[in-house]
């Protein structure tokens, strides 16, 4: 039997169309999420006198005691590499080890990576705890591990210090993050635009799972201010940035505000398209933390100076203050290949927090003593964060809930607004403020 459905040429064309569709699907699968808080390799002059040896109690004296084994898990895959966060934590521990260690003990630090595969993330967590036998986890930054592993960590009695991404990194009892993630950062950008007297807020973000959760915060804050709100979602990678910019501006209307929640390359496409169509002055533009990179400020050029308001969860990388200066010194000496930027700042802070917590341990370093030390951290002050960082027993953890606003200026990001609290109209922030009010010692009050 022979079936003859189509002539040869048309059949070839259909086959090629099918191949093209397969190619498209493949590229979508590959292209996906290239999240990046970016950074800059700019040489930043250290104005205040500081030496890398300041990270330990005994300058120049190597720690020789029994090592304290700590670990971290990070996402590392093509297009999405968060491993520079724990690598910066590792750099800080190296500095500590070279300068007396923690009560004489060096830190033995293990970094595992995963490729957003839940099974792999689960097995890497078990490897850290059951095979590597790490006493504590500090420096993790994985897209999925908070969702996948937080229950396992809870069962095992681990209190994790992380740079979070998934909602579980902020909404659980046993993970506390040094950053605040996309929802609360979008809240901050929305607040900044409302203060600039916009008449409507339009939030534009990637059309990926989880964006409804992010949209809730800015929507509540906008409506509480008595303004209309509209949420738009765009498929990434964006293929028609001019149209997306136009759509956002039309939706916002005259004197409106547009908040972007995208990775830097996608945000850049929209902002540049807006510039080419003369739209940068039609509305006020805001952006969540990923836009806070000098790389983006440089790519945007002078046309955007003072016209884009970016929420910044951490201090400027150029800040002249003790921890900021130490961060740059440690990076320069122990991890010069890691760019200056918010990722390495997060890694540095996590190393600082873990070190300071472990210095207070009396007696042997065990899983229990290490995790109790992490859990007991309160009122940890650093000039890289606006407010004190803390852990403490609580159903959720959002210690980073006070932010700045920065804006591009001459190819770099500069401060536009000093530290301000993220609005407690967002229910999670309200809950956190209640926790802080109940135990004011968490924030040094």
């Amino acid at each position, binding site marked *: 039997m022979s079936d003859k459905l189509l002539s040869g040429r048309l059949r*070839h064309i259909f086959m090629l169309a099918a191949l093209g569709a397969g190619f498209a699907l493949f590229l979508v699968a590959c292209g996906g999420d290239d999240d990046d808080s970016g950074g800059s390799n700019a040489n930043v002059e250290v104005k205040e006198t500081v030496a890398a040896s300041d990270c330990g109690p005994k300058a120049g004296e190597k720690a020789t005691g029994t090592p304290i084994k700590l670990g971290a898990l990070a996402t590392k895959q093509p297009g999405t590499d968060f491993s520079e966060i724990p690598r910066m934590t590792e750099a800080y521990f190296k500095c500590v080890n070279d300068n007396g260690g923690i009560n004489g003990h060096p830190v033995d630090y293990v970094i595992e990576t995963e490729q957003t595969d839940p099974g792999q993330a689960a097995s890497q967590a078990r490897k850290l705890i059951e095979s590597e036998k790490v006493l504590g986890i500090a420096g993790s930054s994985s897209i999925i591990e908070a969702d996948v592993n937080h229950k396992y960590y809870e069962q095992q009695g681990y209190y994790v210090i992380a740079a979070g991404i998934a909602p579980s990194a902020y909404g659980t009892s046993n993970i506390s993050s040094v950053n605040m993630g996309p929802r609360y950062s979008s809240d901050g950008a929305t607040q900044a635009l409302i203060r600039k007297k916009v008449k409507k807020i339009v939030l534009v973000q990637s059309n990926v799972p989880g964006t409804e959760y992010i949209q809730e915060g800015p929507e509540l804050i906008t409506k509480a201010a008595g303004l209309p709100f509209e949420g738009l979602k765009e498929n990434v990678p964006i293929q028609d940035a001019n149209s997306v910019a*136009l759509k956002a501006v039309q939706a916002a209307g005259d004197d409106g505000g547009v908040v972007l929640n995208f*990775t830097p390359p996608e945000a850049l496409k929209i902002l*540049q398209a807006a510039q*080419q169509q003369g739209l940068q002055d039609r509305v006020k533009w805001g952006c969540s933390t990923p836009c806070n990179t000098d790389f983006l400020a440089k790519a945007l050029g002078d046309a955007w100076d003072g016209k884009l308001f970016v929420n910044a969860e951490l201090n400027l990388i150029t800040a002249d203050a003790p921890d900021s200066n130490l961060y740059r010194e440690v990076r320069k000496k122990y991890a010069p290949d890691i760019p200056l930027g918010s990722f390495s700042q997060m890694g540095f802070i996590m190393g600082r927090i873990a070190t300071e917590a472990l210095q207070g341990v009396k007696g042997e370093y065990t899983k229990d003593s290490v995790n109790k030390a992490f859990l007991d951290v309160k009122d940890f002050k650093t000039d890289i964060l606006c407010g004190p960082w803390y852990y403490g027993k609580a159903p959720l953890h959002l210690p980073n809930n006070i932010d700045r606003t920065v804006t591009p200026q001459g190819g770099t990001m500069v401060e536009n607004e000093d530290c301000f609290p993220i609005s407690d109209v967002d229910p999670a922030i309200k809950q956190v403020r209640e926790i802080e009010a109940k135990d004011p010692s968490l924030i040094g009050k």
Partner: protein
Amino acid sequence: MPSWDEFQPFIVTGLALGGVYALSGVGLVVLYRATGVLNLAFGAVGAMGALIAWELINNAGWDDYPAYLMCILFGGVVTLAYGLLFGPPLANRDPLVKATASLGLALILLGTMSWIWSDKARSMVLPTSNENFMVSDVLVNYTQVIGFAFGVVVTFATAAFLRYTGLGTAMRALANDREITATLGVPVRRVEAAAWLGSGLLAGVAGLLLSNLVGLDATTLTFLVISSLAAALIARLQSLVVTLVAGIVVGLVNALITPILSISEYRDMTPFVLAIVALLWLSRHREISISRSA
């Protein structure tokens, strides 16, 4: 539903993108007709050319125009090299095999770009993007004008080239029957090489324009070949004029759907929906015959 005033700027963006889709589609069709290869690496070649131009301008201190030229030349050289290396061994294989082989080149280039340029935000603004004028209330920049005009000019210039020059006639002959053309003494390899080179140069031009009209991002630019591919398929990989019209329609429909919020997020389907509708329409009179032999 948005008002007419609100639709107007989307016509401009749609025409500009549509012009470049058409330009790319013409590059794909000419190469397919001459060599039987549907080059799925077209977008990746343009993307890498644009990133090389960015690198030369920003880190090697080159002036803009030599760097743009390098982008276009890169497209030509890489595509020609691929054609010279893999064209002859694949010459007698099925078109599907040839297309799949070009996918290999796309993946190699995509991997190389990810390795060299990572995923940081970059931009390369053509001088023409900073020059603009008003049409009604819509701001139009010259890159958009060039995008559209180049698509139209390249289509008609290529059609004239194929019709009135010896090389063009040889390409058309190759498209009809490679074996007979060869026996008539046409230097097949040389004619195919010219098609590879021309298609590659168009890939470079498209990469340069799209890096401005869309963004300088390896994945995005590689991905954009899909819209051009749809235009070429609508033209059944034959007609340049239909490719031009289809490219512009794909760009326009895609842009005009954008402000209609209820369907806006589905607009990326536009190229394939149009291609499927067109192919079904074109095959509507074909008879289905089933024969059974003992």
